[in-house]
């Protein structure tokens, strides 16, 4: 995987397969502790604890109830390569949370990628889900919530071309404001 936004897309797809109606994404970069954290939390069907144990092993099970493909193992591998780790917590019928962290300054830490485009893509594909995106640099926070946007839009559908384009730009502006000069790939 070339960037973190692609990993994010994968994890969000898992959440959607798990019938989530709300997906919260938190990206936090802390220069002081040299840590980048990404957390995706959903209110989907969750996983049994015996399944959860093997969630990062792509060969663990091949039964058709398996809803996790290579998304988690690859995300974990990317985190490990940047001196970080991945944790999955899940409760049956409550939801799942996937948390990955990375050493911010590690040479193999993948760049964030085009987060705006990722948000555009998932909203277009699954517009009925509530997405809550928070970007945090420990000083300033940015939030995007698709339900708030829908309220403000009134009759206008969130999937309308101009709205989707605006969302992409709005998210990428947020990325620049919060992570500019903190993530090496985002210029301030």
């Amino acid at each position, binding site marked *: 995987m*070339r*960037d973190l936004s692609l990993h994010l897309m994968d994890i969000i797809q898992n959440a959607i397969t798990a019938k989530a109606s709300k997906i919260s994404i938190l990206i936090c970069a802390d220069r002081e502790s040299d840590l980048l954290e990404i957390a995706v939390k959903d209110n989907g069907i969750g996983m049994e604890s015996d399944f959860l144990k093997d969630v990062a092993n792509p060969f663990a099970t091949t039964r058709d109830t398996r809803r996790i493909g290579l998304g988690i193992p690859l995300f974990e591998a990317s985190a490990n*390569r940047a001196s970080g780790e991945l944790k999955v917590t899940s409760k049956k019928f409550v939801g799942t949370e996937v948390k990955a962290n990375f050493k911010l300054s590690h*040479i*193999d830490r993948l760049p964030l990628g085009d987060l705006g485009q990722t948000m555009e893509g998932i909203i277009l594909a699954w517009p009925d889900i509530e997405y809550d995106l928070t970007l945090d640099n420990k000083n300033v926070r940015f939030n995007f919530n698709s339900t708030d946007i829908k309220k403000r839009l009134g009759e206008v559908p969130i999937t309308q071309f101009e709205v989707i384009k605006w969302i992409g730009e709005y998210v990428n502006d947020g990325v620049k404001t919060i992570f500019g000069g903190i993530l*090496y*790939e985002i*210029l301030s």
Partner: protein
Amino acid sequence: MKVREFAEQLNMEILTGQKGLEKDVMGMYICDLLSWVMSHASKGDAWITVHTHVNIVAVALLVDIPCIIIPEGIVVEEATLNKASEEDIAILRTSKTAYQIAYEAGKLL
């Protein structure tokens, strides 16, 4: 072989690093794990990677890599091009795969 001639012979697009074109290409290295490239590539290697973020320029400088080759027509970020241009590292691009590039480069180098 100079980077300029190397790029021409393999029909690659020169995205940046005009001054870097006069450097010598002596070999080739293919890998996408930057820390691995730092410790295993050799001076003078043309390096093929699918990564396009600014860290590739830092790695090229560190190992004394004269040119970075981006395969399969991948788009390269503006910030990377600017940095490469500042540091005289040539970035070349082609629609070919790493295998095809290496196969052809092997006949030249």
